[in-house]
């Protein structure tokens, strides 16, 4: 019998600091997750307050095989992430993962990575692992983050809603302005951005992988809570897939944004 059952790991928080307004970076030593992780996967963080039952799914920003350090970058989105942002370095936290499918990587060629806001973190590990020409286009409301990290691996274009940094507009505006209609597209960001990008890649006849976000229960497929509408050949013309295990990365062609 195989006795290696996956379980929650209790580990010490190495650091947990703010890197932009409402955005935090947490580092942890978790050898098993670091070893297994693929770009685009996520981990479950469990809260110490047991009145908050459900794990918070946080995408993996970066893993370091040498030091076994896992880096998570997350936005304070609600009560749970607000509490997590207050956890001090040196305290314990429970974590499980990695979960989800992650991006499918291809060797060589041109890769176009598109991120919006807190969808930017998974692009760091992705950019690190891809080979060939890597172009990153990231959009923020105003304050930018992770741009320097991305510049280590890629040519980076920045857009902001208020024009305070880089291009004044959306990521799709940047793609058009620089005529970046080439390569394989990998994206992560808020739904309006992904929806606009879905149209753009269709017009541009490019293949895209979109990483989606949805309110999750368990994170491993049991509760069937975090579904996304996808195209199906059934009577209804659509079906629901689970973001946690069938995704979070989906082929742009199958996703129906409502």
């Amino acid at each position, binding site marked *: *019998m195989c006795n290696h*059952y*996956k*379980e*929650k790991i209790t580990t010490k928080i190495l650091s947990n600091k703010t890197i932009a307004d409402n955005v935090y970076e947490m580092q942890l030593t978790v050898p098993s997750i670091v070893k297994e992780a693929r770009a685009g996967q996520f981990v479950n963080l*469990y809260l110490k307050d*047991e*009145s*908050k*039952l*459900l*794990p918070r799914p946080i995408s993996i920003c970066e893993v370091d095989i040498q030091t076994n350090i896992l880096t998570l970058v997350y936005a304070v989105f609600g009560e*749970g992430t607000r509490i997590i942002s207050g956890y001090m370095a040196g305290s314990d936290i429970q974590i499980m993962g990695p979960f989800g499918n992650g991006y499918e990587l291809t060797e060589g060629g041109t890769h176009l990575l598109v991120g919006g806001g807190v969808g930017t973190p998974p692009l760091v590990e992705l950019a690190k692992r891809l080979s060939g020409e890597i172009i990153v286009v990231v959009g923020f409301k105003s304050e930018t983050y992770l741009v320097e990290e991305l510049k280590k691996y890629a040519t980076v274009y920045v857009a902001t809603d208020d024009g305070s940094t880089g291009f004044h507009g959306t990521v799709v505006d940047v793609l058009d302005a620089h005529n970046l209609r080439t390569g394989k597209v990998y994206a992560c960001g808020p739904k309006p951005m992904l929806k606009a990008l879905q149209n753009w890649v269709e017009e541009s006849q490019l293949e895209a992988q979109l990483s989606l976000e*949805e*309110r*999750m*229960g*368990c994170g*491993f*497929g*049991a*509760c*069937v*809570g*975090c*579904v*996304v*509408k996808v195209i199906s050949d*059934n009577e*209804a013309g*659509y*079906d*629901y897939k689970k973001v946690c*295990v069938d995704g979070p990365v989906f082929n742009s062609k199958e996703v129906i944004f*409502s």
Partner: protein
Amino acid sequence: MKLSVSIAGVEFKNPVFTGSGTFNSGREFVEFVDLSKIGAVVVKGVANKPWLGNPSPRIAETYGGMLNSVGLQNLGVDHFIKEDVPFLRRYDTKIVVNLAGKTIEEYCEVADKLRYADVDMLELNISCPNVKEGGVAFGVNAEMAALVTREVKACSKQPLLVKLSPNVTDIVSIAKAVEAAGADGLTMINTLIGMKIDVHKRKPVLANKMGGLSGPAIKPVGIRMVYQAAKEVGIPIIGLGGIMTGEDAIEYLMAGASAIAVGTANLVNPSATMEVLQGIIDYMNLYGVTDIKDLVGVIA
């Protein structure tokens, strides 16, 4: 130490079951637990044909609990028999199939197809708050509950549990009506109907507006209802609602449940069934209890 329990002629190696809808058909859990150590896998509701379920968001966390409005998304009984039964049979556990339907005919179609399937028991779901027709509509009225129980019992080969809704004024009358209609056991409780509003967006958190509340927040309600029903019916009760630990399980047994099910805890901790089982064993060791039966219904 005797942990096994017998319900409607079926021997379960221990009293720890899974709560329907929190465990799918077990596949998602094989990397976390040995399914052969679970008394029974009560699978997610199975309908006569695939159901798409409700739109997202389907999940909302609440204090000590969660709301769900999944809406019984499932791939249908044919898929279940072809894929899930052989999968579960690889493990030494009992298979209890939760029947989902919108009409008596739909329930019977599922039960009928399962006649020739290698499953141990059925659980009639007349208490899901997330489907408009059927589902809970059958479960909130004693006459309707008795009618659907009688009809589905008549078309079932395997013993039939009936899963009761807590969203009723008099649980005892429904439990008695279902027993009189031929149920072999009761499963109680299903989720309590609840709602959560995002005050910043001024709209409900769930796309379906309302959903079923589960988790430790509902445990006192479950304990109370099992206690009340156990006093009045002779058939065994599977107790569930907010069980997170072995002691929670013991509470249900003492209230009158013959076995228990772990539901929402599976989502929070995928090896929760094993921790609950160990907790039961620890409790029995601590108090020198040699047979799990000796704990059932000890509260006067």
